[in-house]
Structure formats: C-alpha cells, structure tokens
C-alpha cells in the first residue's frame, strides 16, 4: 500500500490516489486535496456535502454516489457540479478521505 504526505500528515492511499483509511483524514487534508482537485476554497456548502459523505460512509469507508448525495443530502445535481466541477462524487470522495464511489447511478 502506497503512502503520501498531505498537509504534513502521512496517509495511506490506493493506486488511484484515494485514501484507504478514513480515520487518517483531517480537515486540513480536505483543504489540501480540494486545492489539488481544482475545487479551490471550501465554503460552508462544500463542508455540508463533505460531512454528509463522511457520515454516510460510516466506518466502512464507502463513499456515496452522486445520486445518493443529491437525494439524501438535499443538494441538487446542478449545485454539486458547481461545487465540485468535473466529477463531483469522485472529487468529494477524494476530499473526504473515502474510497471511490461505486454504482452506476
């Protein structure tokens, strides 16, 4: 398993760069990855989505799909694409320290 250092902390990542241990995640890490992903400054709405994903994933570390985020977290599809452009579910999963979302919808 590969590791990398984000925001001064060494974390485990898989071959696609997704963190594999959600408990290694911190808000500082989220801020750093958001910059890397081109999401930029994290607003309260970004945090609302990130927190929802963290909570939804629970201990298993499975990230929710975009459809799940929009239907449960109360954020519209349009907003998601505006908040996390170019692949919202994958980006938010990365930022939230979770695995790649699985599922076709």
């Amino acid at each position, binding site marked *: 398993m590969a590791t990398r250092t984000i925001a001064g902390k060494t974390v485990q990542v898989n071959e696609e760069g997704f963190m594999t241990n959600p408990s290694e995640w911190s808000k500082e890490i989220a801020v750093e990855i958001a910059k890397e992903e*081109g999401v930029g400054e994290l607003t309260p709405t970004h945090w609302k989505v990130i927190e929802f994903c963290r909570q939804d994933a629970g201990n298993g570390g499975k990230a929710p799909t*975009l*459809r799940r985020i*929009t239907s449960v977290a109360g954020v*519209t*599809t*349009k907003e998601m*694409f505006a908040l996390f*452009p*170019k*692949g*919202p*579910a*994958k980006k938010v999963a990365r930022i939230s320290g979770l695995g790649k979302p699985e599922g*076709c*919808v």
Partner: protein
Amino acid sequence: MTEQTRKVAFICSKGDLDMAYPALVMGWAALGNGIDVTIFFTFWGMDLIRKLRQDHLEIAPVGNTSMKMSMMGVNTGNLGIPQIAGVLPGMTAFATKLMKDKMAKLGVPPVGEYLQMLVDGGAKLYACKMSVDMFGLKMEDFVDGVCDIVTAGDFMDMTEGAQIIFI
C-alpha cells in the same frame, strides 16, 4: 490546467425503453468522470426527449430473442416467451411494467428524471433536424433541456475530437 477535456457524444436512434438507458447510464458515468457529454437524438430516439412520449417508452417481447420467461420469475431457464404470446394485447405493457419495476427496485430513475440529471450535470441535448422535419415536430414538442434542433453537419462540428457512440 492545460489538459484537454475528454468528450463523448451519443447518438440515440431507438425509442424502446431498454434502448433509452445505455446513453443515460454511460452519459451519467461520463459526467461523473469529468467528461463532456453531448447527446444527439435522431429518428425514434427522439421519443426520449418528446414531452408526449418520454414517460411512455415501452419494451416489446415480440422479436426479442433475449427475453426469457425466467426474467419474469418463472424458473424455465432458456425458455423464451412464445412469439405468438408476444402479440397478445397487453404483453408489451406487461413487459414494460416488469422492466420499470426492476429498474425502480435498483434505484434507477425513470427516463425523464435521468435525462434531467444529465442536463443538470452539464450534458448538451440536441434533436436531429431531418427527423424533426420528417415527424413534423417543433422545439415546443421537446422537454426542457434540449438545446436546439441541429443538422448532422452541425453535430459533426460540435463533436470534433469526441468519441461517438451510436445507440
């Protein structure tokens, strides 16, 4: 970021319920991967974006050799639905309901809602000019989210560099 964005274009030419989903599923996956999506609706495929037809797409057992009785929960292995039974009134409606129920169980949205998700995600939808003329349709006949009625040439222009998938 000077990296070129990958582009995918779908041509939807079929109006059957089962043929509506490939572009929706793949288009949604593409958007989820940061890929630009354009969908061109031609011929029967225009049913996917027609207000009158969108919620009434069907799947017919007649002529469909893949449709087996086991899909309906009858454990008959490879036994198909007899073609003669397929022509009975109500069989198409039955098969359609079966598919819609299965999709709903899997959490797959109906065609209209799915298309709206794609539009919200930035997909561009176009209707084919020649088909529109042939079917005697107007822009008002299409659901919100359809950008324009364009010619095949326009489509080629707007999909330069894109991977094109014909369905």
